[in-house]
């Protein structure tokens, strides 16, 4: 009972603090503190409710148990991280985005192909491509190669569509200027069109980060060696070791956030000139 009361008290405290903070003039500190307080409140309330209501740990383990499990099984988590993220997701991400980028530049030279490929690319980007996973596992075997392959297929079309759109994003005036400089195809590409396409390319890269992780993990449900995050999640659920599952989820969330954040930082560094970046301090 004390746990439940403590949970509600903390909840009220969190709301009160956030309401007070939100009334202050918006600054960097408040816009960082408010979401942090919100997140901490949720975790604390979760802990209190699970303990207070005696929720069995096979349904929802308390955050403290997850943290203990996380600390105790770092070697398993690391092994899974290497298998799924480094070997599967990252290699597929690099290959898929690289291939899509080169294809986009090749397609860009032929307006005919471009008009044909864009609608189809848009269509495929909306399809449940993840369903290709069993087929690719059959083709490339159980190890990381099949995971990389599904990631390649998943990231290819969003990246392609974004890059092609970006390469078109120059105005006639800019192109004319390059023309008056007597710039040929390649100088125009490198000095005008690729820089102009950067915001679009980074948009594609950011979408692809989430897709890459999802693809690599879900592909493991269809067969994998005895390591990997998807494998661990599906077997641990079977063993009702939910604290380990949640530890894997924490890893996946951290990896996803860092992956996305890393690409976003890179974007900030490389497209500092773009209006969407200049507005923010």
């Amino acid at each position, binding site marked *: 009972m004390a746990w439940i009361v403590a949970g509600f008290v903390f909840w009220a405290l969190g*709301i009160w603090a*956030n*309401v007070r*903070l*939100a*009334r202050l003039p918006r600054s960097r500190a*408040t*816009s960082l503190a*408010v*979401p942090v*307080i*919100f997140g901490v409140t949720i975790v604390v309330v979760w802990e209190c409710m699970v303990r207070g209501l005696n929720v069995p740990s*096979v*349904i*929802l383990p308390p955050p403290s148990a997850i943290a203990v499990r996380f600390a105790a099984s770092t070697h398993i988590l690391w092994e899974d991280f290497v298998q799924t993220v480094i070997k599967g997701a990252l290699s597929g991400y690099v290959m898929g985005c690289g291939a899509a980028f080169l294809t986009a530049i090749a397609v860009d030279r032929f307006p*005919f*192909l*471009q*008009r*044909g*490929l864009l*609608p*189809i690319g848009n*269509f495929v980007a*909306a*399809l*449940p491509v*993840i*369903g*290709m*996973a*069993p*087929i690719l*596992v*059959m*083709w490339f075997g159980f190890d990381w190669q099949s995971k990389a392959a599904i990631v390649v297929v998943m990231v290819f079309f969003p990246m392609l569509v974004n890059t092609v759109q970006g390469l078109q994003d120059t105005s006639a005036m800019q192109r004319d200027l390059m023309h008056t400089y007597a710039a040929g195809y390649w100088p125009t590409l490198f000095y005008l069109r690729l820089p102009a396409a950067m915001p679009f390319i980074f948009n594609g890269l950011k979408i692809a*980060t*989430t897709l890459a*992780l*999802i693809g690599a*993990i*879900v592909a493991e*449900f*269809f*067969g994998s060696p005895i390591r990997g*995050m*998807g494998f661990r*999640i*599906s077997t641990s*659920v079977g063993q009702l070791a*939910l604290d380990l*599952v949640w530890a*894997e*989820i924490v890893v*996946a*969330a951290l990896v*996803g*956030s860092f*992956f*996305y954040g890393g690409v976003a930082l890179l974007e900030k560094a490389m497209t500092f000139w773009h209006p969407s970046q200049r507005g923010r301090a």
Partner: protein
Amino acid sequence: MRTILPVLTVLAGIFVIWYAAAVWLNAAWAYDRAGRAGVTLSFSELVADTWAQEKPKLPAPHQVAAEIWETTVEKKITSKRSLVFHSWVTLSATLLGFALGTALGVGLAVGIVYNRVMDMSVMPWVIASQTIPILAIAPMIIVVLNAVGISGLLPKAIISMYLSFFPVVVGMVKGLRSPDQMQLDQMRTWNASPSQMFWRLRLPSSMPYLFTSMKIAMAASLVGAIVGELPTGAVAGLGARLLAGSYYGQTIQIWSALLMAAALAATLVALIGLLQRVTLKRMGMA
């Protein structure tokens, strides 16, 4: 006309590559079988064989088309082998998840636009929530909800909901904030109450954003429903067809389920597109 011809060309190219890849990928098995039978294959025999294998590595398009025809038209809809039956199972979860996700997304967006505390505290977490690969957690959600006694449609719909609420929140927040200062001032000079401001100005002007994000949400919702079916032990649904096909090496079955899912996604997105055009036209926005 300007786009139809290029699109058809690219489509034809895809079919050519598909048929060629079928020959290339299935050749090993064809040669293997011919070698054991003690016959040598001419090129035309090889092609004929690779396009008609029972369990090919890559089935030819016409094999998949035949399978789809057989399992949709020639089977009774109630039969467990009917693809229509499986599609319906997936579709119902998709639609329920989509409805829940859209409702949740619109609700959150209204809260975020009207409440400063919510804007500051919830919005960062909404964005962070999408960096978690929810699909990876799907099996746990299904098993846990099963343990609590919730099974069937709802667990899958919850996964769909999680995937589909995000684009709606982002789109609706943008849409509800799209009226500019001048329009807001105009409403104020008419002495509009906050609820009138919402119903007469903010909501109507958010409609184009809502439909665009609903299209994305629908596609995401279908993916969620399919993946949500994987850990339920392959009972029913397109995801179950995929899983069963991969267990027994029934590649034609996998491809037909895949194409069915693609057709489903295309139809649903096109339906929303139609709704969008009709609605916006009646509102005088398109």
